[in-house]
């Protein structure tokens, strides 16, 4: 069993068992007739809707829109989060100054800011990007802070013995020492940015994207299109998360493997 599990394709097949069972259950519901069958579009019509959207090209422009919104938000929020988190961990007065405010802001769920942001910057794409950036900002900030603050003193002493300048101390000890947690922050930030993109697209419905399509399809009662959008969202989110984990593994190749 263990030897079998060591093979990549075996693990991949096992991972597909649960989704396959789910689809079978779905199809049975769709075909069973009755009132609640309305809520389950049969798989073939979902497939047809997929082909329809793909041929139109709107599926790909939606994917591109949601993807670029998430990644821009991750870039903006992540960069600010790393910069501020690192700065707060290195320079205590900044921590004292900003920590209470940031902790308070963090208590409000992101979507709770939408009405306020709507009044300030309107309900356009700008607001969407702000929400997505904010969602990536907090996990990156908190983890970067913890990462730098948690760098062991014994390593800093080595830098002291070899006469490190403040820049060397940062570049050679604090930053690489904090890197595992910074990357954890970015991974969480990516997941949050992805969720926030879809959610803000559904709520604001502007600028295109998978969420916008879901919302339109809901108004047109096109259950098949909603399902296509959901499946594509899941597949795309899964893929970028996997790519990100690979990148993380490469950057942290100096760590002892966990297993």
């Amino acid at each position, binding site marked *: 069993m263990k030897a079998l599990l060591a093979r990549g394709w075996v693990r991949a097949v096992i991972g597909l068992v649960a989704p396959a069972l789910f689809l079978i259950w779905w199809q049975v519901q769709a075909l069973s007739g009755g009132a609640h069958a309305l809520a389950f579009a049969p798989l073939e019509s979902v497939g047809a809707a997929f082909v329809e959207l793909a041929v139109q090209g709107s599926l790909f422009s939606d994917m591109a829109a949601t993807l670029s919104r998430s990644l821009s938000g991750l870039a903006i929020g992540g960069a600010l989060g790393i910069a501020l988190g690192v700065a707060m961990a290195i320079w205590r007065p900044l921590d004292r100054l900003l920590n209470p405010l940031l902790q308070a802001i963090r208590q409000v769920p992101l979507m709770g800011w939408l009405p306020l942001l709507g009044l300030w910057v309107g309900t356009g794409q700008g607001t969407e990007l702000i929400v997505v950036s904010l969602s990536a900002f907090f996990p990156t900030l908190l983890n970067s802070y913890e990462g730098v603050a948690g760098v062991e003193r014994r*390593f800093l002493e080595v830098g002291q013995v070899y006469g490190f300048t403040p820049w060397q101390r940062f570049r050679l000890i604090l930053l690489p020492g904090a890197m595992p947690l910074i990357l954890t922050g970015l991974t969480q930030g990516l997941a949050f940015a992805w969720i926030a993109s879809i959610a803000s697209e559904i709520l604001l419905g502007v600028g295109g994207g998978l969420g916008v399509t879901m919302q339109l399809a809901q108004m047109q009662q096109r259950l098949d299109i909603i399902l296509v959008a959901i499946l594509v969202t899941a597949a795309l989110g899964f893929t970028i998360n996997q790519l990100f984990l690979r990148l993380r593994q490469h950057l942290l190749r100096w760590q002892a493997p966990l297993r």
Partner: protein
Amino acid sequence: MIHEVLARPVPGGAAAAGGALAIRDLHKSFTIGGAPRTVLEGINLDIRPGEFVSIVGASGCGKSTLLRLIVGLDDDYRGEIRLDGERVSTTSLDRGIVFQDHRLFPWMTLAQNIELALRNTDVPAARRAQIVAEHIALVNLTGFEQAYPHQLSGGMAQRAAIARALVTEPKLLLLDEPLGALDALTRVRVQTELQRIWMAQRSTMLMVTHDVEEALYLGDRVVVMAPEPGRIRRIVEVDLPHPRDRAALLHRLKDEILAELTAAPGGPSNLVHLPGREAR
């Protein structure tokens, strides 16, 4: 065996100039739970350039604290520590240290870990790679340049830490129980290597250990410390030529020092010089 090891070239080569350490009336106390607690009291010690001095003592006698003060990681003390006449107040590339834990940066390869010690020296960048390679060879780690610390065994990592400390050719090298975490066999091997390196470089070395045999094997003198508060109980001359073998010659001294360490407090006065020579 030892001569064969010695035949290998050692980088640095010539005796390092200077390296005389003078400690006068050194006191150090910490505040623990609001109350001051003396860790080191009235330490007086002179170490000649090129000498190897071992410090032994029970835990809590302030051995490691003493080394931290000498290397300059802690400057909150009374009394004087001077290296070649200059008062120690902060760290300097003149003073190197090998910690009890190897303290290699896990995010750097072995070669990068050793190279970082040279960053703030005036060694030209073009020469650094070669010096690093020489020191990796010196501690018998050639072939592991690109390995990360988690891929090294404890003994290998500790030897890498020794190479990192040697690469700057410090006048004074402090060793804080550098071999404490190693198994008995690795320990003996690294001790032999350490003796070979010291004989070739002749920098001043001050090693803290809790292994009396190790202290005698390597040291020209052995400083015996007593705990609470940490003070020097006795200094034993080990008047035996290097390289030494671990023969019976060391045994009488070992028994004496062990007796000293296990004796009741308030024993004989400090600074008794004991000739270690014994008629064959």
